[in-house]
């Protein structure tokens, strides 16, 4: 068990990689009532083309399978795992993203029992034809719920504009049609390939003793037999650097139009410190250019083109990355044009000053402290960072080293004409129907 101490933050992080390859982290929060644990596999919706464990050829699995598998992990021969968590007063959940599937619980008592339940249910798959069929109705309703959600359609519409082939363009839950092809054999195949401990990370945060947690987890894992697993082979088609289409729009039953601008990242093989610097630099650039303190935000707000729903975000993982900016607007065309002009001008001749950079740094230092109030943030973000060979606790120290030149370079690298796209959600003309 290794210990890392962060004096300024008054936090300690304990780490060990177990014999079977599982990475375990514990961050004690003695002042909290609640413990929060996540058990995450580096497997998400984009991992749809891979060599299954013990085989030699690539297979392509139906869209939405990682998410389907996440749902089905909760059902066992003797019933629903939620019931076990409830008995010990825990609340449990799970989520699937492009690159991760996370199972989690929070509880203020019986942490040991709940932690065993978490590890054991994720390590004991139970799929039958019947339970797989039953889930199709539930997930079908989850998919149609998102189909009716204009913000979600805006988000995915913009990603679909950007990507020609990369599976990040496929909705995480798949479609009603794609999930209809999922069988229990598919689920076992994905499970065996991606749920080996060496592909997973367990994070526990709360009023716990690291020694006790580690000894409990080690004992639990020692009782299960895992053969060493070779590296997982994933395949992605080559993705052109330009966007798939410059613009697209969708009509929905809404009153307020929505506009999103997407910037497709280049250099998507970065990891570790390089990726961390890139993410921090781009987010800082947007903060300076489009944050509430900026002249651009002020002008767009005064012109009535944006409101409080305006937001921006940049994230990158291995193989893909994008920035998104937008929100509700009465005039999507005008907003899209304004944002693209700002980006174009800033990419060629940046106006970002050192003073602005220092203000953003201060803001983010305080923002990070605020994040540390949240066990959920710590566990989930730490895991995401770790899967990209980055360290969450290096984020602020790295940010402090960024210069105006770093910000300018990141921005001009990202804001290239052929890698920018726009997507609108527009109200239906009711009378025309």
């Amino acid at each position, binding site marked *: 068990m290794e210990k890392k101490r962060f004096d300024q933050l008054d936090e300690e992080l304990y780490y060990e990689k177990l014999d079977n390859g599982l990475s375990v982290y514990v961050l004690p929060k003695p002042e909290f009532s609640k413990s929060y644990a996540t058990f995450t596999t580096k497997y998400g919706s984009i991992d749809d083309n891979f060599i299954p464990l013990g085989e030699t050829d690539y297979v392509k699995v139906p869209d939405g399978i990682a998410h389907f598998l996440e749902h089905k992990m909760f059902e066992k021969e003797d019933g629903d795992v939620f019931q076990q968590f*409830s*008995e010990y007063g825990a*609340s449990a959940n799970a989520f699937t993203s492009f690159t991760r599937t996370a199972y989690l619980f*929070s509880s203020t008592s019986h942490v040991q029992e709940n932690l065993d339940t978490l590890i054991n249910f994720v390590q004991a798959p139970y799929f039958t034809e019947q339970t797989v069929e039953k889930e199709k109705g*539930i997930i079908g*309703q989850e998919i149609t719920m998102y189909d009716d959600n204009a913000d979600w359609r805006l988000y995915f519409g913009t990603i679909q504009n950007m990507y020609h082939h990369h599976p990040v363009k496929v909705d995480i839950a798949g479609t009603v049609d794609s999930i209809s092809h999922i069988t229990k054999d598919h689920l076992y195949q994905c499970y065996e390939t991606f749920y080996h401990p060496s592909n997973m990370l367990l994070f526990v945060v709360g009023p716990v003793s690291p020694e006790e947690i580690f000894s409990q987890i080690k004992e639990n894992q020692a009782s299960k037999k895992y053969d060493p697993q070779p590296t997982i082979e994933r395949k992605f088609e080559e993705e052109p650097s330009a966007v798939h289409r410059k613009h697209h729009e969708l009509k929905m039953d809404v009153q307020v139009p929505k506009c999103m601008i997407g910037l497709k990242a280049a250099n998507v093989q970065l990891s570790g410190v390089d990726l961390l610097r890139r993410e921090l630099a781009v987010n800082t650039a947007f903060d300076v250019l489009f944050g509430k303190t900026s002249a651009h935000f*002020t002008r767009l707000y005064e012109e009535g083109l944006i409101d409080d729903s305006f937001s921006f975000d940049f994230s990158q993982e291995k193989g893909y990355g994008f920035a998104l900016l937008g929100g*509700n607007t009465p005039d999507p065309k005008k907003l899209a044009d304004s944002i693209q002009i700002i980006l174009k001008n800033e990419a060629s001749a940046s106006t970002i000053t050192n003073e602005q950079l220092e*203000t953003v740094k201060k803001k983010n*230092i305080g923002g990070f402290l605020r994040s540390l109030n949240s066990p959920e943030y710590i566990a989930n973000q730490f895991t995401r960072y770790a899967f990209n060979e980055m360290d969450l606790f290096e984020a602020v120290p790295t940010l402090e080293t960024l210069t105006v030149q770093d910000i300018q370079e990141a921005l001009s690298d990202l804001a290239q004409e052929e890698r920018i796209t726009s997507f609108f959600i527009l109200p239906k003309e009711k009378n025309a129907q």
Partner: protein
Amino acid sequence: MRIEPRTVNQPGLRIHTIRTKQFKTNTMVIKFRAPLRKADVTARALLPYVLQSSTNSWPTTSLFRTHLDDLYGASAQVDVGKKGESHILSFTVDVANERYLKDSTPLTKEGLNVLSQMLFHPLLEGNAFSEKVVEQEKRSLKQRLQAARDDKMRYATQRLIEEMCEGEAFALNASGHAEEVDAITPASLFSSYQRMLAEDTIDLYLVGDIDEEDLINYCKEAFSFQKRQNMPSEKGSNLTKREPKKIVEHQDIKQGKLNIGYRTNVVYGDPNYIPLLVMNGILGAFPHSKLFINVREKESLAYYASSRIESHKGLILIMSGVDPSKIERASTIINEQIKAIQEGDISDKEFVQTKAVMKNQMLETLDVARGIVEVFYQSEVAENALSIDDWFSQVESVSKEAVIEAAKEVSLDTTYTLTGEEGA
């Protein structure tokens, strides 16, 4: 419990301090409460947005926000809501505890100063707010209200309440009404503001690793209000019983929203309140609850099917998203679950699970600074204060019989369905 607030009564203001070393930031929340009224709900809903956009010392949003960023990313947020038939405006400022920064300049009083400037020194033009600011925020408010109706889940919930509580103040949207926005002027809004300062019931909460004495003294100066008559909180009007209502609306959507409202005839602080909370837990608040098990897991009808309580109004609201062809089936199953509880169909297991999860949920809420504020404010509004210790001991000791008795008082009021256009 470990957390107990200390309360100091000032003219027109109660200051509550909660000292804890749990957080890396300090949180300050001030809440203004007045009766929910059609005449001024929209103006009051606009007010916090005007006040947070600029102040006399920071006359533009950009200057104001730059000041906050320079205070190591202090956050300033406003919120508008209702509890029963009270309209509540909240202003929250959260600042880093300088103990965790390399720069040890004290920040908490700076944060309180921000809150105080926002409330007492707005940007004015004579006896009115700045016209430019008011016009911008009116436009934003209208767009926010319209966009909220584009979120089908929120829309269905709001429509259920509007139909169910037609003629009662609770039907009003706490965030305002789009058609009332245009009539607001910089001068009329200023009058609403003056009334808010002079008449509202006001509570200030300070949570964190704070020097209580020092901050209370500071707040006595920085938040000076006139004395006022203590207003009892709105008990609300409950209409006499009528036949259950059924409303169906159509839009171009794929998933139907089935939202059902029941009257509980019990509000926060009533003797039956805790039994009712347990009843709601068994019914639909958790993934082991009857709605989740029967609507989702057994019948695969929905992805979400849950219930929640409007504590200060006495309602249970059920929300579900269902294929339009299966709404009847889902409605039948939902109503059967209420009936089952009324008839005593509560297993020992679900009873124990519900209590365990409720206690857990309360403790988890108290792990968040704003959660602490909400829990204490909840009892402040009701006046029938229930201490946290009481809450736990009552949940622990409540009997199945008491839960069944509370369930028997629950009656169907309105079934609201938002469905697709086919067959419209």
